[in-house]
């Protein structure tokens, strides 16, 4: 068997591993095995690549390669291991961004190395696509990271004529790409790279924190396509297949995620959701009265209830309050109160994020109820304790067709006997929409950090 055939075979096995990984990750039963299959495929592909004469031929380059990998591993493993579960989404964003950056660099380097004048046009098109999409993915992911890490505001950043500016920059990038295609000039390519980075930034700025997860999924798909473009440039079936798999499945996943939020993808990307309504929201709350309770009042309410639903949201995730929530649930259960958690599919920072957080806090599995399972229970629930959530329990999604979240499935806490909101302030949720339920007579509010409020409730329940 020739070396070329052997290489193709090993790469084929790796590709099968990647397909099994995606397949496995889409069912709860096989998720972990799937991820392992992907990792094994990756290890095989990378390990075999070392045996290629063109890769290990030059010992100087080989040493550089090993040093770069050692540095990468030394950074990535501690970063991925030590990061808190609540910070996972931004970790995914940053690992995705560097992948896009690597794809862009491969394309740039190949462009420089191309023998001039003799290149087919499609070769340059592939390079340009890799540079453009890889760079957008890199800078876009960096901004997404900054938003989720709260280095910058999670609110949409808007300015006058934003859509026009974005369109002009987008057109500029395309024009520059054509110019680079015609002239095959390296300086133009560098300018294209820089402008693509700018495009990634301004594309992400108007997208609000709650929508960033969908954006990360989209950028993940972009990186896949950039990798596929690098595969065309390098004549590598392996890169084309793996990149395209991620590109296609990422697109589908992005659509599924926006559907779970009851929104369309263009609406998420271009509407600067949540920036406009914010102002009017705080206005409205000024002239209506809300009832805020003391921890002791609420503690008594909870302690003497028969059935309590805890509805965790983004605020719980931010305050790292999942352990305290479990303590409260245990304190209530000790008094004979039936407690369950009602989990909205998009509660937390990403779809499915809340399940992960609560599992980390050792919440018993049978207390977790998905939305469809929890909603029928609400009518017989005495107290719904909403911890740092707002939009996912906002009845406006059912009642007011004009509302931006109209049509989004919600947890029907308004059907419970009493509703308690633990909130940091009267500020509306991520969607920036006021919640009528806050002004309902059966609603009590407790202001403060979710974790502090919950621990106050734990002691209040103990003394009730």
């Amino acid at each position, binding site marked *: 068997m020739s070396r070329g055939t052997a290489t193709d075979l090993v790469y084929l096995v790796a590709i099968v591993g990647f397909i099994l990984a*995606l397949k496995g*990750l889409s*069912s*709860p*039963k096989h*998720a*972990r*095995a799937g*991820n392992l299959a*992907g*990792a094994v495929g*990756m290890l095989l592909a990378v390990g075999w690549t070392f045996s*290629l004469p*063109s*890769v*290990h*031929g*030059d010992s100087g*380059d080989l040493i*550089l*390669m090993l040093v*770069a*990998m050692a540095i*990468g*591993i030394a*950074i*990535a*493993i501690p970063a*991925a291991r030590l990061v808190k579960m609540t910070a996972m989404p931004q970790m*995914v964003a940053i*690992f995705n961004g*560097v*992948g896009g950056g*690597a*794809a862009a*660099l*491969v394309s740039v380097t190949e462009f420089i*190395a191309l023998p001039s004048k003799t290149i087919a046009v499609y070769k340059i098109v592939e390079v340009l696509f890799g540079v453009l999409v890889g760079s957008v993915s890199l800078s876009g992911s960096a901004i997404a990271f900054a938003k989720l890490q709260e280095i910058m505001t999670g609110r949409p950043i808007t300015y006058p004529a934003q859509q026009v500016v974005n369109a002009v920059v987008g057109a500029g990038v395309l024009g520059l790409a054509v110019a680079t295609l015609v002239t095959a000039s390296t300086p133009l390519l560098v300018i294209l790279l820089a402008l693509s980075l700018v495009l990634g930034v301004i594309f992400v700025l108007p997208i609000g924190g709650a929508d960033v997860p969908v954006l990360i999924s989209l950028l993940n798909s972009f*990186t*896949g396509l950039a990798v596929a473009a690098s595969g065309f440039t390098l004549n590598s079936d*392996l*890169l084309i*297949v*793996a*990149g*395209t*798999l991620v*590109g*296609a*499945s*990422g697109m*589908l*996943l992005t659509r*599924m995620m926006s559907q779970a939020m009851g929104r369309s993808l263009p609406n998420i990307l271009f509407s600067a959701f949540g920036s406009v309504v914010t102002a009017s929201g705080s206005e409205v709350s000024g002239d209506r009265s809300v009832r805020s309770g003391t921890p002791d009042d609420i503690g008594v309410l909870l302690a003497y209830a028969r059935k309590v639903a805890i509805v965790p949201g983004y605020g719980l995730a931010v305050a790292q309050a999942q352990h305290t929530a479990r303590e409260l649930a245990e304190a209530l259960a000790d008094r004979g109160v039936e407690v369950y958690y009602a989990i909205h*599919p998009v509660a937390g920072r990403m*779809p499915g994020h809340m*399940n992960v957080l609560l*599992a*980390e806090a050792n919440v*018993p599995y049978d207390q977790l109820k998905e939305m469809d399972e929890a909603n029928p229970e609400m009518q017989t629930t005495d107290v719904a304790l909403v911890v740092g959530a707002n939009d996912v329990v906002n009845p406006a999604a059912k009642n007011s067709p004009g509302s931006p979240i109209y049509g989004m499935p919600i947890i029907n806490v308004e059907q419970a006997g009493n509703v308690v909101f633990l909130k940091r302030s009267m500020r509306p949720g991520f969607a920036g929409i006021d919640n009528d339920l806050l002004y309902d007579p059966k609603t009590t509010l407790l202001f403060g950090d979710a974790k502090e409020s919950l621990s106050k409730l734990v002691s209040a329940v103990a003394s009730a």
Partner: protein
Amino acid sequence: MSGGILGYVTVFVLAAFVGYEVISKVPSILHTPLMSGSNAIHGIILVGTMIVLGHAHTPAEQALGFVAVLLATLNVVGGFVVTDRMLEMFKAKPADRGAAGARAAHGESGGSSAGGSTEGGDR
């Protein structure tokens, strides 16, 4: 390049269909792990960066290749480790209920449970 550009385009189109079909129905609790897992898979660009660095002739190409290998390594290693940590959280649930072997029997929570690593979480 025996197949020529058309051969690669064929591969591209077929892979696009496979990618689309293979994740046809994903429960929402797995959206985040799936995104993270596919993020790790496009780390295959590492192979591309290795080839580029292997071909590098000038110091500029070497520098670009070096950075590219570094970034791609971050993507691969970080991607798989983060995904594994997420999935480990799902595994933890049946174990809590006292099933000694933690045989993931529950439909919703699943996941193989052979691994005995202890990082992440305070179980």
